[in-house]
């Protein structure tokens, strides 16, 4: 029984999507977890991984519209099954033996392996040689020879397609730039391990490169005296029953940033195409580290939520992020992001923007440090903020003003409260 490949529901409100591209060809071997195809909803493309292992038969082609749950392909046990439904005209060995040429013994072809359950690829020695020297896995090549065997022309076709696809991919979304070495021999010459760049890692790699190549990013730093924030938090500890959550510094900073953003629309904007768009909502994405990656779930309308509400949402999102159960709208429509590298011991960094956002606030660890107040050296809990901004849109003075207002909010939370709706 073949395994059906159906469009998954990627969020509460998703109903349909466009099939953008396939990562594999007919007859290809597919492993569970491998990137298999990409779909697009609301102008955002998502890579979908295979949820089973087998040989692929594509039932839908790119640029077609599908409902959630529509079957766009199937995974078969053997390559022959995956290919056989295509209606290929390649004759079977039996047909070859019956080709009428009087009694001439034009000998039989390679023994038919139709009965064998083996997954060995039948291919000509020449085809194997060419594939091997081009670094192409011959199991990925569809064969058009007798009995489905892979011949030179099939390998050459696959190589040509691989080349064409590579240049398509480069045109569509800037992938790894050409100057990045394609082999690992440059560094030390000794390879300890290797694995394909795939899945989430690949998505992150692409996103990071795209981000840096599509905006003029600069990072400005600030130092914030968190004494009052500490007091605020201390007051909340022990009141979880009322608040519904154990308040964290992230919640406090997120609230402060949301408030400042609400009063500084220029920080809550994006360049989209040839336009500058001021967003109507303050949706702050919160960077959550996963085992081998990163997701940024979004707290929407953070300026209109209390610290406690933000905290509750923050906790829920982080849990679901780690369980891989975030909905699509929770990952998108952020207008600003917050990254807490203090949680892994960082002080200040130069975080990378999440396009199309124009600013990202990074906060470091809060540590007791000696500072000068009124001519005296005192110990205060200090935190460094790293604000990356897109200098195409935001000038240094504007970014500086944001930092100043944020400091003001965090160093005088009561005043912040006084201003809140």
């Amino acid at each position, binding site marked *: 029984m073949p395994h059906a490949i159906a469009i998954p529901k990627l969020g509460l409100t998703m109903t349909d999507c466009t099939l953008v591209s396939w990562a594999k060809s007919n007859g290809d071997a597919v492993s569970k977890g491998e990137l298999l195809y990409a779909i697009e909803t609301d102008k955002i493309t998502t890579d979908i991984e295979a949820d089973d292992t087998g040989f692929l038969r594509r039932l839908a082609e790119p640029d077609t519209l599908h409902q959630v749950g529509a079957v766009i392909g199937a995974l078969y046990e053997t390559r022959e099954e995956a290919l056989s439904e295509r209606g290929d005209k390649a004759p079977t060995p039996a047909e070859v033996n019956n080709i009428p040429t009087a009694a001439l013994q034009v000998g039989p072809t390679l023994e038919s392996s139709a009965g064998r359950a083996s997954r060995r690829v039948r291919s000509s020695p020449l*085809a194997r040689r060419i594939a091997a020297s081009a670094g192409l896995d011959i199991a990925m090549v569809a064969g058009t020879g007798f009995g489905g065997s892979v011949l030179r022309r099939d390998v050459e076709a696959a190589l040509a397609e691989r080349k064409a696809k590579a240049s398509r991919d480069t045109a569509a979304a800037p992938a790894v730039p050409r100057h990045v070495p394609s082999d690992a021999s440059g560094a030390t010459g000794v390879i300890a391990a290797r694995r394909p760049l795939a899945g989430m890692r690949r998505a992150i790699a692409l996103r990071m490169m795209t981000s840096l190549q599509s905006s003029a990013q600069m990072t400005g730093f600030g130092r914030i005296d968190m004494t009052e924030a500490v007091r605020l938090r201390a007051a909340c500890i022990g009141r979880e029953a009322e608040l519904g959550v154990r308040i964290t510094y992230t919640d406090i900073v997120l609230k402060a940033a949301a408030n400042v953003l609400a009063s500084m629309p220029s920080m809550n904007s994006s360049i989209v195409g040839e336009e500058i768009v001021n967003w109507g909502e303050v949706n702050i994405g919160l960077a959550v580290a996963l085992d081998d990656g990163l997701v940024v779930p979004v707290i929407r309308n953070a300026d209109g939520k209390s610290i406690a509400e933000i905290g509750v949402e923050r906790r829920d999102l982080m849990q679901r992020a780690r369980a891989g159960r975030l909905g699509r709208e929770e990952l998108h429509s952020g207008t600003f992001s917050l990254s807490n590298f203090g949680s892994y011991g960082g002080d200040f960094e130069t975080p990378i923007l999440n396009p199309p956002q124009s600013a990202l606030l990074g906060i470091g660890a809060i540590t007791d440090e000696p500072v000068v107040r009124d001519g005296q050296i005192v110990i205060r809990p200090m935190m460094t903020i790293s604000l990356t901004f897109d200098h195409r849109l935001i000038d240094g003075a504007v970014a500086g003003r944001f930092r100043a207002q944020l400091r003001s909010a965090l160093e005088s939370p009561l005043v912040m409260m006084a201003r809140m709706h």
Partner: protein
Amino acid sequence: MATKTYLWAVIDAMREEMSRDQNVILLGEDVARAGGAFGGSRGLLDSFGPLRVRDTPISEEIIVGLGVGAAMTGKRPIVEIMFMDFFGLCLDQIANQAAKMHYIYNGAFKMPLVIRTSAGVEMGIGPHHSQLLESWVGHVPGLKVVMPSTPRDAKGLLKSAIRDDNPVVFIEHLALHRIKEEIEDDELLIPIGKADVKRAGRDVTVVATGLMVRRALAAAETLSAVGIEIEVIDPRTISPLDIDTIVESVRKTSRALVVTSSLKPFGFGSEVSAEITERAFFDLDQPVRRLTPPFTPAPFGKQFDEYLNPDAASIVSAVRELMA
């Protein structure tokens, strides 16, 4: 330059060599007075006399034996066994005596013996006069086996065979006797053991012998019209086989077909296929194929011959399958 038939090319070769060297003699049934059962030694008795051109009784062992003994004692005999089917009657003298004298006696004797014979393939004569048995003799170390397909090759190779100090089985085809070719007047010596690329091509290597060479060339024209270019190689010498020329071709084309009048099991095609596979396996995009008549004796009558034997059309089919 003169246009010569295959038959006359053979006669000319013998005449030239017998003129050049007194020790060259010719023995066989009807070779002298009748000028050859098929006319293959016309005029030689008149030119060289009854001591050097001699009719023998129907005694195949003696025909070859006379050659063996004479070759061991200073002569350069050419002996004729009328049909290759008769080899069974004299295989001892050919394979046990002639082939091994030089070897057993540590080089003490040379064996400058030529055994000329004819294959009656496709003459419709019947099962005892149709066989092509090059495999029998190709399998014996010490023998050389030559099988020309054109008049010029026949002349040049027979002269080389006569000058060779080894026993050479020289296989002619009755069906080729009348084909014509321009042959130069000056001394023509074609080396034994060298194949001839009769037609260059990039898609399939077709190794053909005897009657099949011309058919392969005809097939080449048909195939060329549909964009398939075959390379036709005539080995000319069966043993020692010029496998290098064949392999070089296969490296270029990645596909090979061997076409023979002789049969498939244990045959010449098997040898070529095995050699190609051993030496050029990683250049092959298709298995090496052999095109032969079916594994039967040849019954009497031309209608059977036409039915059983590969022709240009079947060569075309076989090539197209390789290209599929």
